[in-house]
C-alpha cells in the first residue's frame, strides 16, 4: 500500500488475521451471535459498525488529552450513544426507509463491546489518523467473521443466500432437496453461531500456531 506506511497498514491488516477482534480479542461476540442468521443482516451490521467505529475512534482520539481518566468510560459511552442517536434522528428525517431497516441495529451498536474496547485500548492513547485506521481495521475484521458466520448459517439453516434459494426449494423438493437433503433448523439459533465461531477459531489457531497460549 503506497498510501500507508508499513506501521499504518498493519493497523488495517492485523485485525483481519492475527489480531481479529472476534476470534482473538473476543470482542463483539454478542452481536456476532445475535444477528448472523442471514447474510444480509450481517452485511448491514458490518457497514453500520464500520461507520461508527471510524467516527467514534476519531472523536475519542481528539479529546483524549482532556478526558478525566476516572470518568472516561462514561464519557466514551455518552459519545457513542450521542453519535448513534444523531445518525438515527437524521436518517428518520431524511431517509425514513433506511432508518427503519437500521433501527434494530442501533441498540446493538451502542452496546457493542468492540467499540468500547477499541476506544479504551487504542483511541485513548493514539493520534487521529492511527485511531481512524484502527477503527476501520477492527470493523473490517469484525465484518469478516460476521459475513463468514452469516454465510454458513443462512446456507445450512435456510438453504438460501441473500434470500435466494440456492439449494432448491425445500417444500417442492427440487434441487438438492430431491435427494433427501434437509435444512438444519439448529443453524438458525444463536448457539450454532457460537459453534461456527468456535470452528473458525480452531481453524485459525491450527494454521497460525504462534497464537496458541500454553
Amino acid at each position: 500500500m503506497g498510501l500507508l506506511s508499513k506501521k499504518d497498514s498493519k493497523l488495517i491488516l492485523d485485525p483481519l488475521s492475527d489480531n481479529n477482534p472476534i476470534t482473538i480479542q473476543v470482542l463483539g461476540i454478542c452481536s456476532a451471535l445475535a444477528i448472523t442468521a442471514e447474510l444480509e443482516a450481517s452485511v448491514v451490521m458490518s457497514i453500520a459498525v464500520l461507520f461508527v467505529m471510524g467516527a467514534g475512534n476519531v472523536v475519542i482520539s481528539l479529546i483524549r488529552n482532556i478526558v478525566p481518566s476516572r470518568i472516561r468510560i462514561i464519557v466514551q459511552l455518552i459519545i457513542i450513544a450521542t453519535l448513534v442517536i444523531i445518525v438515527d434522528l437524521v436518517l428518520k428525517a431524511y431517509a425514513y426507509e433506511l432508518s427503519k431497516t437500521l433501527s434494530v441495529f442501533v441498540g446493538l451498536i451502542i452496546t457493542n463491546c468492540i467499540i468500547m474496547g477499541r476506544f479504551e485500548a487504542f483511541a485513548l492513547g493514539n493520534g487521529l489518523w492511527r485511531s481512524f485506521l484502527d477503527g476501520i481495521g477492527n470493523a473490517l475484521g469484525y465484518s469478516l467473521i460476521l459475513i463468514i458466520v452469516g454465510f454458513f448459517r443462512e446456507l445450512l439453516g435456510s438453504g438460501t443466500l441473500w434470500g435466494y434459494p440456492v439449494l432448491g426449494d425445500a417444500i417442492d423438493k427440487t434441487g438438492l432437496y430431491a435427494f433427501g437433503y434437509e435444512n438444519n433448523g439448529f443453524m438458525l439459533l444463536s448457539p450454532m453461531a457460537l459453534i461456527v465461531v468456535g470452528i473458525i477459531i480452531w481453524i485459525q489457531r491450527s494454521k497460525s500456531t504462534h497464537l496458541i497460549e500454553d
Partner: protein
Amino acid sequence: MGINTDKNSYTILFAIGMVIIVGTLLAAIDSSLKEKIKTNKILEKQQNILYAIGVDDNEGNNVSFISTDQAPIEFDKYVVNQIYIQGGKVIEDEEAYLIEVKKEKTLAKNPNYDRRLPLFIAEKDQKKYYVAPIRGKGLWNSIWGYVAMDENMVIQGAYFDHQAETPGLGANINQRFFMDDFIGENLLDSNGNFRGITVSKKDLDPRNEIKDDNRVDAIAGATITGDGVSAMIKSDLRLYVPYFKKLKQN
C-alpha cells in the same frame, strides 16, 4: 497539556460541561427534525394501510410501499370512510387513522375509559375492505400491524412491523413469505365464533393451502415474536367482532 485531569474539580466541571453540550446538541437536533419525522410517520401509516388492502409497489418477493408522494393521493382515493368505535357507538372521524393505538391501550387501563377502536373502510375494485390497526409485544419491543378484512372477517391482506425484533429471525414478520400467508385466513371458526389466527409451528401446511384452520406457518427461530403476532391478532381484533356482527344484521 498543562491541565491536571485527575483533579476532582476538573472532573466535575468536565462532566457538567459535557452534559450541557450533549444535552443541548441532542435537544436542538431533535426539535429541528421533529416536524419532518412526524410527517414521515403519518405517511408511513398511510402506506401501511394501503399495503394491507393491496395497494403497493411490490416486485418479486420484496415488500415495497407506494411512494411517499403518491401515498396521500391514493389514501384519499381508496379509503372512503374512517370511523372509530367507542363504547359500542360508531363515530365518523376523518382523521381516525391518526389515533394512536398505543395511547388508547394505555388509557384503557383506566376502567372508566372506553377505548377508541379505529377502523378504516376502503373500497378497491368494487370490494369493501375493513382495515384495523393492532399492536402487541414481540421478543424485545413492540410489534404492530394493519389487518384488512372483508365483512365476514376473512383476512384480505396484512402488514406487520416491529420496533426491534432479532434481524434474520423475528424481524422477518414484515417479509412477504410470512405476511402473505394470512391472506384468505378466516378469523372465525366454522360456527362463526371468533378464534383469531395462530402462528403455529405444527402447521404441517407450509404452503398454507388450508385457509379455514385459523393457523399459519411460523418462522423457525422466532417463536416468541410469532406468539406475539398470534396474541395481538386475538386480543385486538376480537374487539371488532360486535361491529361485524351488527354489519351482517343490517
